[in-house]
């Protein structure tokens, strides 16, 4: 029973729970400790296993999604099969969500009693490993996909690189200079594209997409759809680096995008910069240029998250505008300056010395309002803003307004998630395996993430993640094999009646019918352990390892009985 400091112990009477659990059948000892996941906590478990000859362990702590593997490892270190373990989630699903200590403690007891009943039926499962085909598939030819491809190819590994557009380069093709050092983004990406295009180990497919990926870690295959042909490729690992797109600001009626002339997006302004002519719609040089931040970002109606790069991009574009037209006045209308990242805060501070005007607005209260100016105003547009720091309502003159549009997930993010078997967050960016400890792996073994398809990022962060994903794949290739799911389904041939219901419901075509024996057979490598076959089997012939009927039924029994016992105690 873990306290997790005060995280659990504040809401659950952990010591009382331990006392109660020690009375249950089969329980040899029940202990509580401040941090079970810490080294001393794990050592205690290992010591106790050895000392008391324990053959089952239950830990009640945080979510198994957090530390199930940690404790399985501890069991292994003590010489016990890692599956002789059950974890009870009394932090995320008890102490953090309830407000009555007695109710939370009662619930914790019931859940742990269920787990104790369940673990009785656990059995040893042996690790299974498969060989890894070193060839790697990279989806997306932007800075992340290109960097990852090069890293892997440079190690002597073959790479398939798929890009949906006609040319490689991704988002950076459209960017003139990068912040904060004004390096040419376009030149940078051209160099990398050249290296990729001429690399003997990389086969790049442009104007191409992949259909669904089949197989399992180390042994995948997929059809590539190009303009005029289809090709089947085989590979062992996947990097998804499909990037993001910019937000269309039309729905934000305050800004009049698409209606008012000279209201443009940051991407359109970037194009002007790279072409070297910053001009208004009538072809004249603008005297006043305003940048409005957080357009679609940090806005509950559109995207609640921060798009991460827009503040710095606005500062960069404002400086470039001043370089192009030194007499112009630039305004930054911002909600909150977020100039994070190496050298970026200094970059921001430097803008103050360059005669840039910063005006703050409260996004919760009122967005700035852009209107056409009247002829006497001597400018194209007027922006009304309730300036937060001065508390005054101001009218800002502008000949051109640049909207710093949000970064959002690709249109086809969902299709790619389905094709590659990965999951999305609510905002359609992809979910990493662990937000802190494994931010570039996914929950699908062998499939990794790189760049902005996970969340908005700047160039260095995209490249870092791409290299990390590449390193993970190279490490797996070096090892030569990968462990695969062992919590799979298995058919008891004695009980199987040959109805083939399981064959029909399996989403992975992992079950076939043996016409000689007249029974179903599960391919242990293809099976991913969802258990759908087990719950469809009319004769109970299918055993879903680690989620067997017995295990779950006992868990239900244990937790319900404890709930009733605790109720009777109260009466």
């Amino acid at each position, binding site marked *: 029973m873990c306290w997790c400091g005060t995280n659990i112990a504040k809401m659950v009477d952990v010591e009382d729970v331990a006392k109660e659990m020690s009375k249950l059948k089969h329980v040899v000892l029940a202990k509580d400790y401040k941090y079970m996941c810490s080294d001393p906590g794990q050592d205690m478990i290992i010591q106790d296993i050895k000392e008391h000859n324990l053959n089952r362990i239950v830990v009640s702590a945080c*979510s*198994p*999604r957090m530390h199930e593997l940690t404790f399985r490892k501890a069991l292994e270190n003590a010489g016990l099969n890692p599956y002789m373990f059950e974890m009870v*989630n009394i*932090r*995320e*699903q*008890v102490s*953090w*969500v*309830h*407000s*009555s200590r007695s*109710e*939370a403690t*009662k*619930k914790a007891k*019931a*859940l742990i009693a*269920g787990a104790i009943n369940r673990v009785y039926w656990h059995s040893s499962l042996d690790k299974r490993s498969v060989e890894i085909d070193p060839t790697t598939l990279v989806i997306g030819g932007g800075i992340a996909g290109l960097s990852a491809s090069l890293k892997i190819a440079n190690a002597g590994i073959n790479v398939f690189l798929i890009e949906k557009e006609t040319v490689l380069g991704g988002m950076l093709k459209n960017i003139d200079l990068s912040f904060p050092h004004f390096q040419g983004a376009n030149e940078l990406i051209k160099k990398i594209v050249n290296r990729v295009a001429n690399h003997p180990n990389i086969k790049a497919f442009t104007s191409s997409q992949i259909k669904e990926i089949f197989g399992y870690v180390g042994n995948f295959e997929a059809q590539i759809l190009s303009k005029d042909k289809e090709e089947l490729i085989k590979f062992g690992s996947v990097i998804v680096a499909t990037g993001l797109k910019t937000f269309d600001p039309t729905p934000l009626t305050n800004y009049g995008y698409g209606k008012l002339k000279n209201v443009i997006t940051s991407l359109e302004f970037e194009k002007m910069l790279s072409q070297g002519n910053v001009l208004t719609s009538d072809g004249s040089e603008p005297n006043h240029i305003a940048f409005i931040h957080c357009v679609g970002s940090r806005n509950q109606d559109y995207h609640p998250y921060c798009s991460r790069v827009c503040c710095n991009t606005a500062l960069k574009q404002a400086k470039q505008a001043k370089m192009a037209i030194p007499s112009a006045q630039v305004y930054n209308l911002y909600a909150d300056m977020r100039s994070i990242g190496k050298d970026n805060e200094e970059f921001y501070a430097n803008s103050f010395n360059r005669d840039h005007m910063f005006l703050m607005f409260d996004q919760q209260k009122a967005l700035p309002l852009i209107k056409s100016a009247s002829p006497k105003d001597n400018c194209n547009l007027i922006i009304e803003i309730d300036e937060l720091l001065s508390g005054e309502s101001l009218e800002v003159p502008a000949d051109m307004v640049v909207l710093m549009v949000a970064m959002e997930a690709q249109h086809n993010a*969902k299709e790619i998630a*389905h094709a590659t*078997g990965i*999951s*999305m*967050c*609510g*905002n359609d960016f992809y*979910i990493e395996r662990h937000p802190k400890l494994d931010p570039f792996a996914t*929950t699908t073994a062998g499939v990794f993430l790189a760049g902005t398809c996970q969340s908005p990022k700047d160039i260095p962060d995209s490249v870092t993640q791409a290299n990390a994903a590449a390193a993970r794949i190279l490490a797996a290739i070096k090892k030569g094999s990968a462990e695969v799911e062992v*919590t799979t389904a298995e058919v008891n041939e004695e009980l199987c009646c040959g109805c083939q219901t399981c064959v029909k*419901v399996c*989403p*992975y075509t992992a079950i076939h019918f043996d016409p000689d024996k007249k029974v179903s057979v599960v391919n242990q490598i293809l099976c*991913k*352990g*969802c*258990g*759908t076959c*087990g*719950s*469809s089997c009319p004769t109970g012939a299918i055993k*879903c390892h680690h*989620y067997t*009927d017995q295990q*779950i*039924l006992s*868990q*239900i*029994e244990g*937790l*319900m*009985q404890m*709930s*009733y016992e605790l*109720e009777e105690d*109260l*009466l």
Partner: protein
Amino acid sequence: MSFQPKIVAFLCNWCSYTGADLAGTSRIKYAANVNIIRVMCSGRVEPTFVIKAFREGADGVLICGCHPGDCHYHEGNYKCLRRFHLLQKYIDQMGIDQKRFNLEWISASEGKQFAKLVDQFTQTITNLGPCSIKTTMDVLS
């Protein structure tokens, strides 16, 4: 003491269990009546599990899976949905009110929705009162 319903919930690991974890990390409070059992996929929830929960004295049973089209295993949730409709008819014939058995889709990002669902379902079951099937069965056996 007022009636405190006992509810068993089966949550799929990839969407709904993660969503319930998110409710925790977001510190969203909800009723303590729901006891969560983790399964890899809502498609794993056998009719027997649901019947067993009622047999052991659950006043309500909840299944949560990924939204249609988002299943980690492609279509386990559809299999669950089909079974759910049949099972509702079945429990009705056993004398268990259909409202005591519910299936909802909760994604990994829907912590708030999960908390709301638990509170609503707990309220529904509280209004229905205790489920008598356990007592009946205890007498019969």
